[in-house]
């Protein structure tokens, strides 16, 4: 379910260091590609993760979708790479009022804010309603194994 995703802590007010984002081609501005650096002090540290952002035709009324290209082992990232965070959900998507309206998508949010939120999601997973159940289990019960797997993924991503 779309709305059973995680609540994100307020993004830290910092310049988006370690983020590169822009349209894949200048002819299609609704398809972006972003690179996100793994946050420091986490097993994702040192990694660079490519992701694609797809904006709907009625952006900014509707939120974009974000998908990691390649393998990201994380409780809140679907095995397909789709990112599940509250900022990417329109307020109408949540009939259970599980997520606060302020955490969800609104036209005043920006791409920068999304990417920062995703970065902080990498640092602080939320296993309340995981997108990747296996990863969430591993994160909760076997933290060392989880971190090793993430580090392996980071190195593989860099071709090492």
């Amino acid at each position, binding site marked *: *379910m*779309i709305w059973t995703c995680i609540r994100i802590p307020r993004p830290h007010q910092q310049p988006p260091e*370690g983020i*590169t984002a*822009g*349209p894949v*081609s*200048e002819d299609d501005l609704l398809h972006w590609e972003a*690179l996100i*650096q793994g946050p420091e002090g986490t097993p994702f540290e*040192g*990694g*660079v993760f*490519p992701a694609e952002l*797809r904006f709907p035709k009625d952006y900014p009324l509707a939120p974009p979708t974000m998908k990691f*290209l*390649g*393998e990201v082992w994380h409780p809140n990232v679907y095995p*397909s*790479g*789709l990112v599940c965070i509250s900022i990417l959900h329109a307020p*109408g998507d949540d*009939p259970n009022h599980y997520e606060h309206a302020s955490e969800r998508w609104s036209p005043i949010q920006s791409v920068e804010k999304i990417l920062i939120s995703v970065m902080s999601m990498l640092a602080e997973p939320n296993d309340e309603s995981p997108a990747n159940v296996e990863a969430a289990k591993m994160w909760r019960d076997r933290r060392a194994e989880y971190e090793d797997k993430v580090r392996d993924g*980071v*190195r*593989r*991503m*860099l*071709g*090492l």
Partner: protein
Amino acid sequence: MASTTEEINVPSLVVILVISGLIIRYFFFSPTAPPPSPQQQQRDALAALRSREAAVQRIQQMFPQAERRTILWDLQRNGGNIAMTTERILAGRMDVPPILFQPPPPPADNNATGGQSTAGAGAQAAAKKDDKLAQPDLITRYNLKDKIAAEAVSEVAVEAEAEAATARSGNGRAPKAWSTNKEERQSLLQRRRDEMILEARRKMEAKIAAEKAAKAEAAGGSGSS
């Protein structure tokens, strides 16, 4: 006298003939004027089908348990309104479609990707599928092999390149400024991306080397003691 009336009559007769000819042509042969109309209709129908398919996929992403036929039936009855169908599924008020309602089978290429992508042409979906299967690392993804090789050849070259880059940026072309040129903007972005990946790789390489050295040292230390 008679000849003058005849002379006046001939051109007016011609005019009348031409006008009536045009009128007849307009009334009876107008369907021939827009011959591509059936094609247009077909295209419209195809577009409608595609958008309906996208709507079904969107709803099925939200409600994997909902049946395709039921969704299609509901969409058809409310004119393709996704929000209304969503609400009805949530409220559990979906009607069972009549047996006579047999929707067209889902397109094949969408099945291949497991209905993951809501938007995207077949080619795009196929490309994505390959992407997923191959799981390429960043180096192959952005064609950075050459750059890595060049880097390995000599560190000096890298430094020279960096110097050249700073010199270039110092030449009045500030890298941060918003360029009005499409290609320039794109290449700037690409350069930033490449630099980010290469730097991360360099750091990771150094880290791995340091780890190896530490391990070797520890092994050597335990061996000697």
